[in-house]
């Protein structure tokens, strides 16, 4: 019950004119004219096909050697799990392969795990990021169960299933009997080394329990230097993944024989996971993967084909733009 309009009756309530309130702002109104449509489609083709070709050639240039060893580096017994779990058994395994093409440095050494659900929800959640960069937060292990604390309540650093299941196979490469140095420095992200993993946090009570999941950590080296751990802690997106093991800083010539001495420690047998050693070069497109190239070719090709189809359509079945005789009420009703 406002009574304020009583006195101001003389004041016009007419809305003040502005282009905004009258919805008359200047606007650009693009219309899909035939020229525009064909132009867009052709442009897409012209852009996509070269990129696709580039990607294909880049992928082609990648030299990649993949060697699955989990099934051969184990005695053919039924007790695979028992074998791998037994700390006493000798797990050394030697593999050799030849380089198919010249590999320019740096050559990356990866390990690849298949059927390892590093993206399993329970696994992904089982970590404490606070603990990694804050020396005072070693007790913040609430998310890490069951690897949060030892039986007597001491915090595990780094805690959680991810760290606990650290990959611990080791590779040493030799070329023509000369040891090939694998550089394990700077394999983790710089951001991890400088920020995420603190130089003041040292592993504690790690893998001390009855249950050994994977690799152990040297308690005298701060986390900021445990690059294998950092790489491992970057959980993969997919159940098949590669992780960087190290870099070879020399070129590998074609047909060179490479011998790898593997310490086959990591237990993938309990869940039928595969382990592969991968030696690969890299290009702008990443590793060997033709998909992007093919996809771009396909999209570009389709665009051009569509562009041609539309051109034909516009030529053979033209429709004048904005012709009012096409309005439904102007059409011959018999057409309805």
């Amino acid at each position, binding site marked *: *019950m406002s009574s304020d309009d*009583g006195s101001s009756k003389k004041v*016009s*309530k*007419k809305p003040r004119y502005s282009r905004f*309130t009258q*919805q008359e*702002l*200047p606007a650009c*109104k693009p*219309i*899909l004219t*035939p020229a525009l*449509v064909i132009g*867009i489609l052709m442009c897409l083709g012209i852009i*996509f096909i070269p990129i696709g070709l580039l990607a294909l050639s880049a992928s082609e240039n990648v030299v990649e050697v993949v060697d699955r060893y989990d099934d051969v580096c184990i005695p053919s017994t039924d007790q695979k799990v028992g074998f791998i779990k037994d700390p006493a058994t000798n797990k050394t395994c030697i593999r050799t392969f030849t380089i198919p093409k010249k590999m320019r440095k740096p050559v990356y050494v990866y390990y690849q795990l298949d059927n390892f*659900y590093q*993206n*399993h929800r*329970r*696994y*992904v959640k089982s970590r404490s*990021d606070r603990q990694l*960069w804050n020396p005072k937060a070693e007790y913040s292990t609430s998310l890490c*169960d*069951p690897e949060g604390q030892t039986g007597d309540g001491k915090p595990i650093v780094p805690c959680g299933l991810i760290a*606990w*299941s650290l990959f611990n196979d080791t590779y040493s490469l030799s070329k023509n009997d000369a040891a090939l140095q694998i550089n394990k420095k700077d394999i983790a992200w710089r*951001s*991890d080394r400088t*920020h*995420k993993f603190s130089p003041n946090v040292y592993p504690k009570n790690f893998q001390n329990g009855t*249950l050994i*999941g994977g690799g152990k950590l040297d308690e005298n080296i701060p986390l900021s230097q445990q690059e294998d751990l950092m790489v491992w802690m970057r*959980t993969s*997106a*997919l159940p*098949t993944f*590669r992780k960087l093991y190290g870099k070879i800083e020399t070129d590998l010539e074609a047909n060179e024989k490479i011998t790898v001495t593997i310490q086959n420690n990591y237990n993938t047998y*309990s*869940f039928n996971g595969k382990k592969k050693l991968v030696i690969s070069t890299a290009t*702008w*497109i*990443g*590793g060997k*993967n033709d*998909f*992007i190239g093919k*996809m*771009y070719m396909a*999209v570009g090709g389709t665009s051009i084909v*569509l562009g041609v189809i*539309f051109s034909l359509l*516009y030529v053979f079945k033209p429709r004048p*733009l*904005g012709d009012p005789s*096409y*309005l*439904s009420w102007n059409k011959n009703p*018999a057409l309805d």
Partner: protein
Amino acid sequence: MMKGSQQQWPLLIPAPRTPGKEEFPVAIDSSIPVSSTSKPYSDSQIEMSGDFVRNPSSHSIQSKSSSSHSIKGVSFREGHDLNPVTYGSRGASSGSNPVRYGSRGASSGGFTSSYKEIKDEDARLVYVNDPGRTNQKRFKFAGNSIRTSKYSILTFLPRNLFEQFHRIAYIYFLVIAILNQLPQLAVFGREASILPLAMVLFVTAVKDAYEDYRRHRSDRIENNRLASVLLNGEFEDKKWRDICVGEVIKVSGNQTLPCDMVLLSTSDATGVAYVQTTNLDGESNLKTRYAKQETQMKTPVVGNIGGLLIKCEKPNRNIYGFQANMEIDGKRISLGPSNIILRGCELKNTDWVVGVAVYAGKETKAMLNNAGAPSKRSRLEKRMNKEIIILSIFLVILCTVISICHGVWLRRHREELYLMQFYRKYDYSEPEVEKYEYYGWGMEIFFVFLMSIIVFQVMIPISLYISVELVRIGQAYFMIRDDRMFDKSTNSRFQCRALNINEDLGQIKYVFSDKTGTLTENKMEFQCASVGGVDYDNGKDISTEDWQTGYSVQVDGMVLRPKMTVKVDQDLLNLSKMEHTNESKHVCDFLVALAACNTIVPLTVETSDPAIKLIEYQGESPDEQALVYAAASYGFMLVERSSGHIVIDIQGKRQRFNVLGLHEFDSDRKRMSVIIGCPDQTVKIFVKGADTTMFKVIDKSLNLNMVKATESHLHSYSSKGLRTLVIGMRELSTSEFEQWHSSYESASTALMGRANLLRKVANNVENNLRLLGATGIEDKLQQGVPEAIESLRTAGIKVWVLTGDKQETAISIGYSSKLLTSKMTQIVINNNSKDSCRKNLDYALQLYKKLSNVSHSNDEGHGAGTNQLALIIDGTSLVYILETELEEKLFELASKCTAVLCCRVAPLQKAGIVALIKNRTDDMTLAIGDGANDVSMIQKADVGIGISGQEGRQAVMASDFSMGQFRFLVPLLLIHGHWNYQRISYMILYNFYRNVVLVFVLFWYVLFTGFTLTTAITDWSSVLYSVIYTSLPTIVVGILDKDLGRSTLLKYPQLYGAGQRGESYNGKLFWVTILDTLWQSIAAFFIPLVAYWDSTVGGSALGDLWILAVVILVNIHLAMDVIRWYTITHIAIWGSILATFICVMVIDTLPFLPGYWAFFMIAKTKLFWVCLLGIVVAGMVPRFVVKVFVQHCKPNDIHIAREAEKFGNLREPNAETEMNPIFDLPRSTATT
């Protein structure tokens, strides 16, 4: 003594009113028979041309809330007791009333008892001037402090939350958030899961808090106003909030009433008070209220005021009804609605009133009526809710799929489970040591189901509700601000009273329009008169100065001038100035009748020139006003009205007429009459009324030729669309007068059947009249109405006119408004029995078939105008048709007619006709009207529009939208309705699409995580997705985008059909969109997946890629559909993409999240950008191609019109001329 002789009348002049000076009428000698004063005023209504209940005060239709009484009050119209005077329900104004209000309370005739007993348990007892006793513990009445605010600081949080959670969508949200708090189900981080809900609640709470703060402030101001209250025998100032029931309050002129009060006395000796109820029902005319004579006499002695007991009904919302008894000196008198003045009204033209508070604070009728507009749901929203249910089912299916897959996965890996890191059912080394959170089959699957609901919650677009609301606010803003819908004459803007049916305006198929005040201006203008068989039709132009100066009189050096001037016919003017001829006497009688036979109150209004005063005629009937103004222009100026007499300035001479009695209009007699004691000591009865009833009581033998001539004039008037009235008079002989007077006295004091008795008295005296003449009043067609109707019709909207007017008038207005054209075949149904109605309907249907067969051979259906049908049906026939089996036939017929005109319909029949369509088709209906009689139809229709015109604001109060003129319907529907519909429907579809894309991307990923519902996209991103990443563009586009410009939409009204056919949002489009969604999500998900297969990519990095891909995709999708690019559209769309990048970066710089720096690492690689580009193009190409293809090969009207608009080649196929230039008129006049 009671048979007051004429000589006594002049004594009954109330004390002169001196504003500001308070005077109790103590001076009146008790010997003066005050009580015998007959009371000519009443606020019931003269109804002249039979437009039922056109007058605003016969509020037979109340707000929905006012219980069944009001419905009864209306429904009796269905039968033939068409009586406009219905005071609410119970006709409570009856009573043993010593002050006679003419035939006031005529409606109470049906009651056996003069007043209805109020049961004790239903009553409240008010001891006048004894608030202590009144407010005893047993009856704790509400104090007068009001609280429109909803919350206090303490109750705000709980109450506001409680109210917000009334929405089902919020409950869904809450359940999800709670589920997520269970440790087993914690898919999202706690904060992230609460954020969306918290955000929505917070925004709404802030809005509510602000609104409430404003209410608090206005409450405080209201509560602290001062009123003078009788305390210890003196009137003292008291704050409004401290007033309690039972206190006696005095209110001075122009003050607002603090509470509902029963009048005890007023400054007027006869107890009259005038109030303006603008604040209550928006009507600006004055209403008369009365103090009971008993109390009017009593109050002078202030101490004497106690001891009165008022027993009244419990507080209710009916502002037009009140029922109470008052015990005074052991006598019981009844009180009615005319004895109460309500909170919020303003006292006018009365120096003071004294009253007793009966309802205070929140129990006042004004506060009880403080409810908002009725809420309607838009069609689109109903449809949207259906679609949301589909989405929910879809969601459940997705979740079920996931849980089944998970079950299968668990089963396939059951051998390994005990060895896996994730469950560790057993220890690695020792058998059976420790289980870790493995809950067994059933529970695992069940948990996965719940978790998947949490992850996929975004499937239900919660943000859509908020966005739609925001968009509607934006649309309402534009509608209100549209200066083309501003009415200069009433200075009123377009108003959106209901915010949630904007888009319905774009789908209207039927418009039901009132005639008077809606199609016409309801500014009655006196046009012509037939006096004594001579037609004075002022066809001649008069000079402009005449027009401006008009007629005026000099009084005490002051110039009095009527506020409005009327064109005068020179012949008639000359005649009226002549004296002593027979003819001029006749003319004089005619003009006196015009000036006297009414209930108009003259008010003097100051002007800027102190020497000139304007006389304004206040009354409830515009017709009466027009007549009085006309009389004034001919020199018969009504200058004063008080109880018992009127003063008419006749050619400069003031003459005083005593009003001895007044028979109010009732719809049986269809006429009213006054008995006037003239200055020359004769007593005359003046009668005016509808021709049908008037000619029955006119003595034709007196002058048959004149009667014939008048009849023919009447016929020509009404065929011109004028409202006609016939005026007659008779001189009463002394004996006749005595006889009438005694019967009038006894009838109006009768306890039983007073109304009938009064009617009988009126019928007895209204006979053998001498015909004076007839008047023609023009109700002008509003500006632009024919063009508007034409446009609407071209747009495929059927316009039906429902009016209470006569058939001839209605048809002539129909022609002038182009509703009817000469090409149409008219079907008139005008019957008095059901059988004849049936026969006529059948015949009409056959006729239609014949016509359509004929035309079918040479033309398609409803194209050309050769076979157009117009149905004209009257209320009487409708009585036999509505709500019977004939309804079906009527519907069948009416839906085939191009125009439908219903005349003589009662308000409830209007609603019945709306229901006729609404119940049988899916088509949207719109009702537009301006009066109380349109309320029922406005509320019944899907969209109700009120015209804020001359007839008060009842229609506006009940409406969803209100505007000043009928023609605004065209911009409203064709432009705003079209835009609103296009915008909202696109927005809903887009919102579905947008959320489903994300859900699909999440879903695909779940397939690669062992069905454990890991999300690569961070929980923050998936929560911010619908809040920040993609919300703004759709809102901006929803508010601003226009598919077509104004001029195009007006030029081709047919474009409106897109909305009627529901082209922009329908099931097909929904499913096509979902298909598109599927493809786009596949592109967005699988391209990176395959590209990064066998790589070192981390989950967070890939997640960043996915979310960015989806956001860019949906924004580009929107960009592709934007029709007009404004700067702000660019900002919103590209800004959103940018904002997403920024957000993703910010999230990745938080070291405590696992995805620290992931974005920066992946964005360094070229593969990332190549992927993004590939996704966007691959995702969009199918949509683009389909869009182009459809536009080229199967273009719809909007496409064509858009192209035409762009390229400007609006070639006219059949050289149509610009049809409605009138719509640009207001603009040009406004800017100059």
